[in-house]
């Protein structure tokens, strides 16, 4: 049997796409499926997935856990753990439809939960850290259980298959939200594990990523010093943790996080005014292990917005477009034109320059 994700490191090429309505208009899941399916040839049927934000307005104050189970024992243990640490507002198995191209599905459950107050207080952690630690605990301790989505009012849907098939399987046309991202995967191996598909999520952070980062082990070993366990050995997992670490834990604004993961070149830093120079020097000095090197284009989804970013040299394609208050980002322009034939503006963002779009009314948190 071939090694699964996490037992071996598998590089992959990919397609990504993202849409956000800044005014918070509801976008049906069918839109993002249409967009990503145009780039069919950029995936090879070994992984597809979506992240939708604003999709659970009725439970928006609860953390939505999406979990894969590969055996009943894992489900039993995990549910016991969840019951011990959280109050469950609602739970169900995620609705899917039979699809000829999607096979070997695990048990897929969804829990809307909130931490038990006494457990949370006892942990001396803030709520999000508490949830994050519980998620990592489940993923590392219960063999056969895998939490693949854990934010509020958002959810990840992924599987082994082409993204358009995955979207149909999860009946995404029945969901709508203000923000969607999508991913089609082209791994250079056949892991056949659903958890290995993208987006990768932790709390409300999700990443879809196209590329193969050359800094992976430097990033991983830095992150592991701060308690993260890079279990899947994928770039996407490491990149998600980097954003979680810098943005949530170190409280650096996203605009500054970009200056760490896509650090300014020294030639530019040397010519900055003193105060700015000192800051950028410090970024490179202190967080050098979190610089993301090698080719990548990513879309980071977070509560209330999304950010698209290319590596410093722009070694991966990425196009952006705007129509009214809606921003589109995709690996190829065709994926945008498919759902927005005449955008007001189309452009190719420069390497290392982020596009950040936020909900005008702010996010959940």
């Amino acid at each position, binding site marked *: 049997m071939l090694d699964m994700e996490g037992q071996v*490191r598998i*590089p*992959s*090429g990919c397609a990504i796409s993202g849409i956000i309505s800044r005014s918070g208009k509801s976008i049906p899941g069918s839109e993002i499926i249409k967009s990503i399916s145009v780039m069919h040839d950029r995936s090879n049927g070994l992984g597809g997935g979506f992240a939708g934000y604003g999709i659970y307005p009725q439970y928006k104050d609860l953390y939505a856990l999406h979990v894969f189970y590969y055996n009943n024992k894992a489900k039993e243990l995990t549910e016991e753990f969840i019951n011990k640490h959280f109050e469950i507002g609602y739970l169900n198995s995620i609705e899917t439809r039979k699809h000829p191209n999607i096979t070997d599905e695990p048990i897929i459950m969804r829990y809307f939960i909130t931490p038990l107050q006494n457990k949370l207080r006892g942990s001396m952690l803030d709520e999000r850290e508490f949830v994050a630690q519980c998620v990592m605990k489940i993923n590392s301790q219960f063999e056969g259980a895998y939490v693949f989505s854990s934010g509020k009012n958002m959810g990840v849907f992924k599987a082994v298959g082409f993204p358009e098939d995955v979207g149909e399987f999860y009946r995404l046309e029945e969901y709508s939200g203000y923000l969607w991202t999508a991913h089609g995967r082209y791994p*250079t191996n056949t892991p056949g594990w659903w958890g290995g598909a993208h987006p990768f999520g932790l709390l409300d952070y999700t990443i879809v990523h196209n*590329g*193969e*980062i*050359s*800094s*992976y*082990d*430097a*990033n991983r*070993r*830095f992150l*592991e*010093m*701060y308690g993260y366990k890079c279990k899947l050995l994928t770039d996407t997992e490491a990149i998600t943790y980097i954003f979680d670490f810098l943005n949530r*834990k*170190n*409280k*650096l*604004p996203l605009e*500054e996080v970009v200056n760490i993961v896509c*650090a300014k*070149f*020294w*030639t530019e830093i040397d010519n900055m005014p003193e*105060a*700015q120079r*000192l*800051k950028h*020097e*410090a*970024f*490179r*000095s*202190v*967080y*050098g*292990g979190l*610089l*993301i*090197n*090698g*080719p990548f284009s990513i879309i980071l989804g977070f509560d209330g917005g999304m950010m698209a970013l290319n590596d*410093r*040299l722009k*070694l991966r394609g990425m196009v952006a477009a705007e129509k009214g208050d809606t921003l589109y980002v995709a690996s190829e322009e065709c994926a945008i034109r498919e759902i927005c034939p005449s955008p007001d503006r189309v452009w190719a963002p420069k390497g290392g320059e982020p596009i950040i779009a936020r909900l005008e009314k702010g996010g959940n948190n």
Partner: protein
Amino acid sequence: MPVNYIQPQFLVLRNTDRCIKCRVCERQCSNEVHSYDVDGDVMLADESKCVDCQRCVSLCPTHALAITETPNQLRKNANWSSQLIYEAYRQAESGAVLLSAMGNPQPFPVYWDKIVLNASQVTNPSIDPIREPMETRVILGSKPRKLELNDDGSLKTKLAPSLQLNVPIMFSAMSYGSISKNAHESLARAATELGTFYNTGEGGLHEDFYKYGKNTIVQVASGRFGVHPGFLRAGAAIEIKMGQGAKPGIGGHLPGAKVKEDVSRTRMIPLGSDAISPAPHHDIYSIEDLRQLVYSLKEATRYTKPIFVKIAAVHNVAAIASGIARSGADVIVIDGFRGGTGAAPTRIRDNVGIPIELALAAVDQRLRDEGIRNDVSVVVAGSIRCASDAVKAIALGADAIYIGTGALLALGCHLCRDCHSGACNWGIATQRPELVKRLNPEVGYKRLINLVQAWDHEIKEMMGGMGINAIESLRGNRLMLRGIGLNQKELEILGISHAGE
């Protein structure tokens, strides 16, 4: 006539068809191997004095000379090598400890040669350093766990003093005394022009070189030679030398023959006296004492300079490094057992300490396991021989490297390993004025710059091949390394996979 137990190791081959009897070999050899016999009009050689430094060969205008190993052999014995036998003869004669110089020449495994590097193919592109930016600048020092910003976006966190290196290569500690003033001048000027640092070693700082202070690391060793407030303030950083890879467990040795007037003044010791540093620092008998010295030096320099602590790579190096990281030190230097020296007891040089590759891997991993890797930078020394060794060291986890032997090679050293005699024909490891002047610092500093720039270029080429364009993404990136012919335990300690995995 007494029996001569010790036979010459080398043979001087002189092609008499080519030799024009210009006697340059005779004038150049400080060991007085060559001589001219007027009566016979013939050049003679006394090989018992020859150290194979290649000076005569390099200067012979007609290429008439070659030095080779002597064909004379003791009876072969796999257990008793001829070297061991001669050493026994020598000690039976002198009753003394054997002295040697430069790094451990014994055939221990060189792990650099059993590690190979990665390169990009198809799934990601390599980066061409000629056409794209490629960054090898390094910042050494203690880094805070996190940064905080003010409301206006400016930096709130105050950073500890640090060193910025334009290249990840520095010149390691070699004292004035063990090497010549011209060698020091070459190193100081090269470091300045390269935007990196050289290290005074434990011999103080010659008054002429205070002007290079911005690119100087001043060293405080157990003998405290040449240490005074002005010296501490002169450098960009201070290095406490706890140990040295070539001779772990003992202090520095400078034979009295090398303690001439200038050296004596700089070291603040009597003329012609042996400068034997105590084995331990007599104010450091434990880790908490080290902390006191670190902070004494910080106090003395008003917390403006990073403090390096240099140790030899020994068995328990990871735990020791962890202690040092918690002692207030900003940079830990680990010196491997193949590191060079001007003089060391042979038995210690050849048998004490461990390879730098294993020590580095263990230290980097230990500091990460304890979550304190960012509290200190890690610099490694002890036989980084070329750019690929440097790349492998950085990928194993080093922030930067020190080169000593490599730098001396650039200055003309031929690794004859006779530094302790003080008769270096290349003007490097000597204090005899007629020999020192053979090393022209004007030429020397340019050769050092060339060497480091060439290595830097090679480092960039290799990084580009891996698809990496900033050296911080190479640091600790062990996925870029694979072992060849290493056993499971070695791979485990190095934290790398085997080639093909």
